[in-house]
């Protein structure tokens, strides 16, 4: 039973906000301003690679966002942590104080609560505004690219495909090249499981999803050699799935590109005799169905639908103005394709054998 007659415990009053409160708050503010200045004027390459000499235009935009968030984040953190420590010291129970002593019995303060709701909301609104601006640049800011290329993730290497280059460039052995100063669109997809295409200095990252193509748009602003990192778990060798990106002058890039073009394509075309349509169907399901459906041409997944490939006059001409023949199909399966319809991997990338090619051609030709 409660007994109201018992003596109330002693409440220890506090003068103002506490001894040394304002000097401490001012000291923290000075610290925060100093750190903010440091963030904005000192090189931050340790935290953000390439910050003092940005590698891509988007990297500069994203870094501006990082700096804003860092300045405010540091300030909020120091205020909270600082006052936790300050209060723990200044408002501690003194040795020998009666056990039942109580603190200031205050429950709330509508004014204070209003302000500490409004100020964070304002900061958040500012952050949202800044983020949307940068986001818009990342998504839509590049206008029409000078170069569109494809990066296809595989277990456990990257494949780079360029328009006009019949064969792919592979990350196990070769680098991805880009010309300085020209807006580029990188189309990212995967041939098997999820991967990710990430160049830390460029900041942009895109998950490589099978059955889906993502855009990464930027303009390189500095030459150099940079790591391409797979940042989405993809299996046993995820940690050694790496590539190299070389950004070079446009002249050097064209020179490299020309060199790639002259690389010999395989000598004799694959023989299509004895192809088995049923076996071809199995290969199709395993290797091709992630990107192609057996459906009218318009039903694209990544590549166009392939129903009635040799028959249907609605199916566009691909190679020489006439509907594709079995030989044409074989050639594309063997060497891949880059052109207005996109880029398709060649046989090294898809890993199909001579027999597979023959079977696939038999199957695709049989779709009437």
């Amino acid at each position: 039973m409660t007994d109201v007659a018992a003596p109330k415990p002693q409440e220890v009053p506090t003068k103002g906000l506490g001894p040394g409160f304002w000097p401490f708050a001012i000291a923290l503010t000075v610290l925060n301003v100093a750190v903010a200045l440091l963030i904005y004027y000192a090189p931050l390459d340790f935290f953000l690679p390439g910050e003092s000499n940005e590698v891509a235009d988007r990297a500069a935009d994203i870094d501006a966002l990082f700096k804003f968030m860092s300045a405010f984040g540091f300030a909020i953190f120091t205020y909270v942590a600082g006052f936790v420590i300050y209060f723990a010291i200044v408002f501690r129970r003194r040795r020998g104080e009666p056990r039942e002593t109580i603190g200031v019995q205050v429950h709330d303060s509508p004014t204070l609560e209003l302000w500490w709701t409004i100020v964070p909301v304002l900061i958040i609104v500012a952050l949202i505004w800044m983020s949307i601006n940068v986001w818009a640049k990342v998504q839509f800011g590049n206008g029409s690219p000078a170069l569109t290329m494809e990066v296809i993730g595989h277990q456990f290497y990257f494949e780079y495909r360029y328009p006009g280059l019949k064969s792919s460039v592979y990350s196990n052995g070769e680098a991805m090249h880009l010309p300085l100063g020209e807006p580029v669109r990188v189309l990212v997809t995967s041939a098997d499981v999820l991967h990710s295409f990430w160049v830390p200095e460029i900041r942009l990252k895109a998950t490589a999803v099978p059955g889906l193509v993502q855009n990464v748009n930027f303009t390189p602003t500095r030459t150099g050699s940079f790591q391409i990192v797979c940042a989405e778990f993809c299996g046993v060798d995820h940690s050694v799935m790496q590539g190299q990106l070389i950004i070079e002058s446009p002249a050097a890039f064209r020179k490299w590109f020309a060199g790639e073009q002259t690389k010999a394509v395989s000598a004799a075309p694959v023989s299509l005799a004895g192809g088995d349509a049923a076996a071809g169907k199995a290969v199709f399901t395993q290797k091709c169905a992630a990107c192609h459906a057996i459906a009218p041409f318009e039903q694209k997944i990544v590549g166009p639908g392939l129903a009635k490939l040799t028959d249907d006059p609605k199916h566009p001409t691909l190679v020489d103005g006439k509907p594709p023949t079995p030989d044409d199909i074989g050639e594309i399966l063997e060497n891949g394709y880059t052109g207005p319809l996109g880029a398709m991997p060649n046989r090294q990338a898809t890993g199909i054998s001579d027999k597979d090619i023959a079977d696939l051609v038999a199957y695709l030709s049989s779709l009437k």
Partner: protein
Amino acid sequence: MEAGMHATPALHEHDSDDHIHPPPEGFIRKYVFSLDHKVIGVQYFITGILFMLIGGSFAELIRLQLWKPEGAIMSHEAYNVVYTMHGTPMVWLVLIPLVTGAIGNFVMPLQIGARDVAFPWLNMISFWIVPLSGVVLFSTLLYGGAHAGWTEYPPISLQDGVAGALWCLSIILVGVSSTMTGMNFMVTIIKMRAPGMTWTRMPLFVWATLATALMNMIATVALSAALLALFLEHVYNVPFFDPSRGGSPLLYQHMFWFYSHPAVYIFILPAFGVISEVLPTFARKPIFGYKMIAFSSMAIAILGFAVWAHHMYPSGLAPWIQTPFMILTFAVGVPTGIKIFSWLATIWGGRIQLTVPMLYALAFLITFTFGGITGIFLASVPANLHEHGSYFVVGHFHYVVGGGAVFGFLAGLTYWYPKVTGRMLDERMGKIGFWLFFAGLNLTFLPMHWLGLEGMARRYASYEYFAKTHPDSVFWNQFATVSSFLMVASVALLAVNLIWSLRHGKLAGNNPWGARTLEWMISSPPPYYNFKKIPIVYDRPYDFGEPLPYRNLDHETDPYPAPTRASLAGPAPFPAGA
């Protein structure tokens, strides 16, 4: 199948025992298949700690592996299993059982003046599913183990074979347990509060448990659905996620994260509740902004359902989807920030005792705020494109989980241990353990933030390429490894303390801390029926300057409870003399 139900009884002295069931008899009934929420709470605790030791050992294997850039102790294949079996048990067999199952079960019914939860049988079954699920989970190791992390994204996870299917089954099981507990707690809180305990007189830990239970009840089923779909694809080749037959890998991510984002609030809200109890008690003043804290708990629970796609920004979402999720993700930081400020105002002007629970609570304010701020960095889509899949994310979530949920849990453990056992924990061991953990946590996880920003990706069994261009990364990884052993030492010391104090701890009495919520009005440990007479409540518990707002208490109680001599910490946060 009637649920054994301890309803609120009549108030007259002579028939108040009508609704107290006879005590359980025999070892099995008392300690194994017990219906008593307090015993079940302890069972959850033991189970959670056991799995934490296993999950933590796997974490140390991770840190040892990363001692050398090319990987120091195991193959890539083994490492992938190790990191998966670190995260998976930590999330489902440690965090949720400890914060919800252990503390929630033991404390919540006491705080509302009830004799048990609404459905004690369901509670018992919910518990026993957890060790069963753990057995199924670790049986995956017999089949090569699951490799793709606690998220097990398809298509890669489909390469896990039998282990993958068993992994799905195990988590579906533990999900059922969570769902049932959520439902149980919700009904308990809604229907079984003591007379006079209106919504605004409930302790804040109960509010936190209510918000958590709501999320447990709704979100966990979505996880079961996602994993059921994955299981069907594993075992029956049903193409939910296979693009070649019309499925989508992105669909899994949507279904998975729809649960897994609320899940992180399930981890943290009970910890918030603990902080809201510990701070007033050891500052000897009311919680500041009770209504805002209660409201923001519910706001976080509801808003938390609307932000899941921020885990998927780079993954192929249509661009127009990213922006609303970004705005909502930023928005959900606001109620959390309000809480932090309210807690700061709670300790302002107090008479603070730096006991071990208070140290953990204060440390929580620091480390959780830090983790919350790195969360703001991740909320912004363009910044996230750089941070996703890197060690920055690993640093962030270990700060909010370790520096948030775990600190909150440890605050709760050290705060309520006297109530559970009747003994005080050793203060000196407690303080040494606290400083070890605080140092270990910060030193291990802080470097991960800049390692991630520099370009070190996560889930890497080796980082030789990164080390070539960033030679200092070797130092920082080794630094993190050494620091992690501080946490190991802390846990070892905690274990010693828990066990030693059972026999040798000072006797606690009913209310060693001078606290004001109902659990401190009964004996330590409480009798199996909790309250002989259900108390009547007529005000909020946090007004230290007022007499206790209860009538009909079982024991004669000082209207102005004060900390006992047994509990008084020295004013210093450092171990005082014995």
